[in-house]
């Protein structure tokens, strides 16, 4: 993974990261020392409802930034917007965001990924009827064999194919999925698919990886390993931005927390202090007032319920309900092994 190393490796040291962020004022839209992503005036309305309205946001290079907020705060929509999966309503009237110095506001989702900002999805999008290895190999960029004219002549691409396969196997080994390489991705457990999706994203050597609820629906045993992977990515110099409901996770690994509520960024700051911010308390209180925010358990359970409800609704909507049972079975078997 040496080729993915970007930024200063010294950020593997927690003290260095604290020092880096110490100079940043913990307020919404604060300027960072070395922002990899800058977002300005991005707004998205569905009908009369404003789902996202972010005035300004910067994401620091080389650290783990968590994006949190109550349900419906617009986190996923915000993800969709900056990765090109959705278009801001404010397009053409000031909406602007740039990644690594390159403007992205008119770029399609595929070009965003090519620019080095790769995302994963809340509902894992593994390519079910393809093998794990094929899933991985689709992650690699610039394959000459993907050109229609060259594809029929194997010698033109077989060399590169071998290299890509080697890299895929290396990554799979790292994520402990190597022995599953010839299985259909659809036969993996939910947690394994999250891992696969993350590994697949890494195949493209991204500068920044954006994880949409990486822990949702993952069993506790696998959660720990996922967290470890995320941290080691950061330690190798990659920038990580992730959406998460679980405050435990957020506290545990994030170097910086951005809080969204009702589409806006209401607070920013280090994980241990941001939750005592009045704006954050108000934001969560808006949703339900008798919970003590300090109690992780309450927040987590509620959040989990919400996620589950959302997942259920979404899955049903996608008519995936049928193979749900299979997954559940695989979950139990797969995660034990």
């Amino acid at each position, binding site marked *: 993974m040496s080729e993915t190393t970007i930024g200063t490796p010294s950020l593997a040291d927690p003290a260095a990261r604290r020092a880096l962020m110490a100079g940043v004022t913990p307020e919404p839209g604060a300027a960072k020392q070395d922002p990899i992503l800058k977002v300005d005036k991005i707004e998205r309305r569905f009908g009369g409802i404003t789902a996202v309205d972010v005035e300004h946001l910067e994401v620091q290079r080389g650290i783990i930034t968590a994006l949190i907020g109550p349900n419906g705060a617009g986190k*996923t929509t915000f993800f*969709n917007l900056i990765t090109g*999966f959705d278009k801001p309503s404010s397009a053409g009237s000031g909406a602007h965001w740039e990644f690594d110095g390159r403007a992205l506001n008119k770029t399609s989702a595929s070009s965003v990924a090519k620019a080095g900002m790769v995302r994963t999805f809340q509902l894992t999008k593994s390519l079910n009827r393809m093998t794990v290895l094929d899933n991985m190999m689709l992650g690699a960029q610039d394959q000459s064999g993907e050109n229609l004219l060259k594809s029929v002549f194997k010698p033109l691409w077989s060399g590169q194919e071998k290299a890509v396969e080697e890299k895929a196997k290396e990554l799979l080994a790292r994520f402990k999925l190597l022995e599953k390489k010839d299985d259909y991705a659809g036969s993996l457990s939910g947690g394994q698919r999250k891992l696969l999706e993350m590994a697949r994203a890494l195949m493209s050597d991204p500068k920044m990886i954006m994880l949409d609820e990486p822990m949702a629906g993952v069993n506790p045993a696998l959660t720990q390993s996922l967290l470890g992977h995320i941290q080691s990515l950061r330690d190798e110099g990659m920038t990580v931005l992730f959406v998460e409901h679980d405050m435990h996770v957020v506290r545990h690994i994030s170097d910086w927390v951005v809080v969204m509520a009702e589409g806006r960024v209401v607070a920013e700051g280090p994980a241990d202090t941001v939750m005592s911010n009045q704006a954050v308390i108000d934001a969560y209180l808006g949703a339900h007032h008798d919970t003590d925010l300090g109690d992780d358990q309450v927040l987590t359970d509620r959040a989990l319920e919400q996620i589950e*409800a959302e997942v*259920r*609704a979404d899955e*049903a909507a996608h*008519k995936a309900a*049928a193979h749900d049972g299979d997954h559940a*079975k695989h979950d139990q078997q797969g995660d034990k092994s």
Partner: protein
Amino acid sequence: MKSRHHVRTAGARAVRKGLVGTMLLGLLLPLLLLVGGSSASAATLCLPKPDETGCISGTVGSRSDPVAGVDVILRDAQGADVETVTTEEDGKFSFTVTEAGDYFVVLDDETLPDGLEQQPPRAAIAGPDGSVKVTAKLGSAVSPIVEVRDQDYDAGGESFSDQIAQSVVNGLRLGLLLALASLGLSLIYGTTGLSNFSHAELVTLGGMVAYGLVNLAGMNLWLGIVATTILCAGVGYVQDRLLWQPLRRRGLGLTQLMIVTIGLALAAQYAYQYFVGASLQKVVVRDFGTTSFGPVTLTNLSFLAMGVAIVAIALVGFVLVKTRIGQATRAVSDNPALAAASGIDVDKIIRLVWTAAAGLAGLAGVLYALVISNGIRWDTGMQILLLLFAAVTLGGLGTAFGAFVGSIIIGLVVELAGPLGAPGDLKYAVALAILIVLLLVRPQGILGRAERVG
């Protein structure tokens, strides 16, 4: 999760049990009520025998420019179809009759080459529906004069604005009948996500059942319409009960379900041909007369059909908006999982939708056969299937009101395409072309909502 698994296997078993039953019963049973009809046979030379047979033979088109491949229909004095023959290369047709008396000869418009139509006969020999009256005698041959002319033939009297007025009314009539059928298509799509390619066969079924009840069994027309609607609704219920519900439980993908509907459509179309034959069958033979309002002339049946359609559509609209069942239906369309979570029996709602959709389609089929296609044939429904899809897509997939608006627009477009310059069959093509253009501009349809991405 475990219990769910059980449900699915049970469902699978139910599929096996139900399938054969559905395939045969659900679609074909009503057809079994019908007596096998006549089918087109090739023209053979007729030699009259004294006191035994008489001949009615002639040529379609002129001798120098005969029209081949046209179905010529012979009707008896009561207006019932006796026989249908197809003209050969020389345009000749010939019937052998065993009873003397008045007969009517008419060309099947559908089989005429594009742009041609049968020329209305002189008043002296004019029969109902533009047919030519002949009087056959045993032991001799008569030759009715059957002429064709260009469709764009200008009879002279009608002004352009009159034509437009007539077309607008015709368009509304077509639109209303399309709306009847497309409402169901849209509701099924909304609640289950399924594009039902066999919906048109339900329309045909309506016409076929009405033909059996009214024409063959001699039932009163109004009673027949009601009975047909109920019978078709029953077919919808049985279809869902025996086919769609087990398949839903089995967890078949939408694409697979769509292909199932195609197989069903194919089987149904040929089953109609098998049982009823390939020719156009009249639902009623009686002439109900016409009424004119200014430049617009419509048959009285058309007014009644439009009235029935409006009442039915209004009823559906009322149920959807005002009643609990309607609210539940809309809730299922919005989000089936959420609807289920809030205590709505989704399966029951979907079954209701199938029942209502099939009933509406059947009603549309009767009315269509009565006032537009002038009879019912195995492919009557198939011919309007694409118009239905265009209407539903135009209005926004899955919204009932959108389907209504889309249908009216499609109806108007189809009928106005002719006077505005589109030749013959191309009027259907115009409607489809508009659909394609609309998808470019506003993919979610006129009333559809933009989809949430991601």
